């Protein structure tokens, strides 16, 4: 979630200035093995106060295990977890300043909504009056004032989700862990709830760590995203970094859609790189230096919206960055159309075009020969 630009960037993005900001959650070389299975492998991660950090990954990527270790349900096989400067590695869940919102919500079925929310407060032995006030406050925060006496099974999925959130927030935790918080909601409700969640997080200033497999959700919610793959952190960065500047083929392919081709470095200069790609049937001219060597085999990835289609052959600079093919498939998505173009090498490239003209009679259509072109800074050169 992008912050308002009127705020000072340095205030809202503490991770950009690591020398002056102490991380709030510090995961150091954490490894978790279940028998012989390596669920989390040597993960180190710093998360700052008031962040909304998303752990993004497919199933079995270790993201949930990492979250469960933060909650204290699992013990790391090795490594340490620090929260607010205190070593929490050995602390049982009931003594951690951390609360979790479960994927299944885990609402106590035999208790009313109020009793569910009050459960954690009762464990702190707060006076009755204070508990009642806090419960009322939380119910209004999640807009369920009239539902306090209901049982969980009398609520809809979205209402249960909000009760779970209220219960997790009741003890004013320093850190809130959310396991697929929107996973069980339908698409429309999910979109509404996303913004609600961000609003609550911003107004309370609690640090959120969200586990999700839904990249769109991660992009919308997160201040930063940690992409996980096979128990390791593949990349950590702001949503735009992850999307525009992926650091590996895995991240480029996992986030959004990307066209990926193999190529060989033919020119390696400090100011530009030229890559010859047989798959693409042309040279790729990259307008900045890349850490590589001549004759090195590497990969080049480009997003569909970073390319454009034309019937006439454009005249590109540097005699590169243009190739041609036949339109094979067109997917009309309303705002954009997605073209699948078959190149001479047999490689298929996806290009998206904005439908800026209504009912365009002159739109590129099936079986047409088209030229694909892109600018010299549109793609990402990937060496791993």
């Amino acid at each position: 979630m992008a912050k308002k630009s009127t705020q000072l960037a340095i205030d809202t993005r503490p991770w950009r200035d690591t020398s002056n900001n102490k991380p709030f959650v510090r995961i150091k070389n954490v490894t978790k093995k279940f028998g012989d299975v390596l669920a989390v492998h040597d993960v180190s991660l710093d998360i700052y106060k008031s962040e909304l950090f998303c752990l993004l990954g497919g199933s079995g990527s270790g993201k949930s295990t990492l979250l469960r270790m933060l909650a204290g349900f699992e013990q790391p096989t090795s490594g340490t977890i620090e929260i607010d400067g205190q070593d929490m590695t050995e602390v049982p869940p009931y003594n951690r300043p951390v609360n979790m919102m479960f994927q299944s919500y885990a609402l106590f079925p035999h208790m009313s909504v109020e009793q569910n929310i009050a459960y954690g407060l009762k464990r702190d032995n707060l006076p009755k009056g204070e508990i009642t006030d806090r419960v009322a406050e939380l119910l209004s925060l999640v807009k369920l004032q009239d539902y306090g006496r209901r049982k969980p099974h009398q609520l809809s999925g979205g209402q249960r989700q909000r009760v779970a959130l209220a219960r997790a927030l009741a003890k004013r935790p320093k850190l809130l862990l959310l396991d697929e918080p929107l996973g069980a909601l339908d698409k429309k409700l999910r979109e509404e709830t996303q913004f609600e969640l961000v609003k609550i997080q911003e107004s309370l200033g609690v640090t959120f760590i969200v586990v999700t497999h839904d990249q769109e959700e991660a992009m919308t919610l997160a201040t930063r995203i940690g992409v996980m793959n096979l128990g390791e952190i593949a990349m950590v960065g702001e949503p735009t970094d992850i999307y525009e500047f992926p650091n590996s083929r895995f991240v480029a392919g996992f986030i959004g859609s990307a066209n990926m081709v193999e190529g060989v470095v033919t020119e390696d200069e400090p100011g530009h790189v030229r890559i010859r790609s047989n798959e693409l049937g042309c040279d790729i001219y990259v307008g900045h230096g890349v850490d590589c060597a001549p004759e090195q085999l590497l990969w080049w990835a480009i997003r569909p919206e970073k390319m454009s289609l034309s019937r006439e052959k454009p005249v590109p600079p540097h005699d590169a960055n243009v190739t041609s093919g036949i339109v094979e498939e067109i997917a009309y998505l309303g705002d954009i159309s997605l073209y699948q173009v078959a190149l001479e090498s047999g490689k298929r490239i996806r290009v998206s075009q904005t439908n800026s003209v209504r009912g365009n009679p002159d739109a590129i259509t099936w079986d047409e020969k088209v030229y694909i072109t892109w600018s010299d800074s549109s793609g990402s050169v990937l060496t791993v």
Partner: protein
Amino acid sequence: MTATHTPTIPPPRRLKPWNAVERGLAKVGISGRMLVLAAPVLWLLVFFLIPLAVVFGISLATKQFGRPPYSPLLTTEEGTVQLTLHLNNYIRLFTDNLYIAAYLSSIRIAFISTVITLFVGYPMAYAIARAPDRWRNILLMLVILPFFTSFLLRVYALTGFMRGNGVINQFLGLFGIEPLVMMQTDFAVYVGIVYTYLPFMILPLYTTLVKLDVSLFEASADLGARPLRTFLSVTLPLSLPGIIAGSMLVFIPAIGEYVIPSLLGGPETLMIGRVLWDEFFTAANWPRAAAVAVAMLLAVVVPIMLLQRAQSAVVER
């Protein structure tokens, strides 16, 4: 293949032999559903309700010598049919202290046994429900295993443990402890009932506990509850249906238990099952025995109904 051929003709309807039967029955007003329901109804009628009615009838007769050893309810005399109902069997149940004492003692023994069984069975059921998958079936099998030998044999085997020179006393003797008197006491009856009915407590408890979502316990811990608090506030209330079902399965048969008190109990162990046996076989007083049986049935049915109501209330919540 092109999409020109689409099967529009349905396959020929096969004539099923039972279709004709079904149509025939439908003409008389009998549907398949009725037939399916009829089987258990018929079974209950023939093997439960009719015998029960017979017992109830006998309980309203008086003892007499001959065959059958009770007076007929209906007699024909000078062309009139007379119905004679003797209520003195029931009156005796309430006036003779033996019966009241036996009922109360049965309920007390059954109740205490049920409580002990619950305390022994709950941890076992919990452990099995939380055991790793591959262990669970083995452990459940071990719980059911005693059923593979005769009940009578198992109760006899207990005497080998508890008698004067039995296994327990011999073991205690190694430490110079005087032999304990266990046989022919209420203690032995409790041991027998708890041992015999433990599986009936464990199995329903296990089925409720195994269904509980582990994340509920995690949520409780996450909200600051220590393990004991989690057990009292989450596990226990959610396993109430299992507790009720298990207690019912132990309490009800324990009230009428005959074999265990007569093999393990002493002369002062008074249980209604033994009284019934004595009335029937020793005193040969069928009507009195029948009245005891009917009264026992009522004593059992009332707690069942109460517990069932409590259980459905729990389920509704």
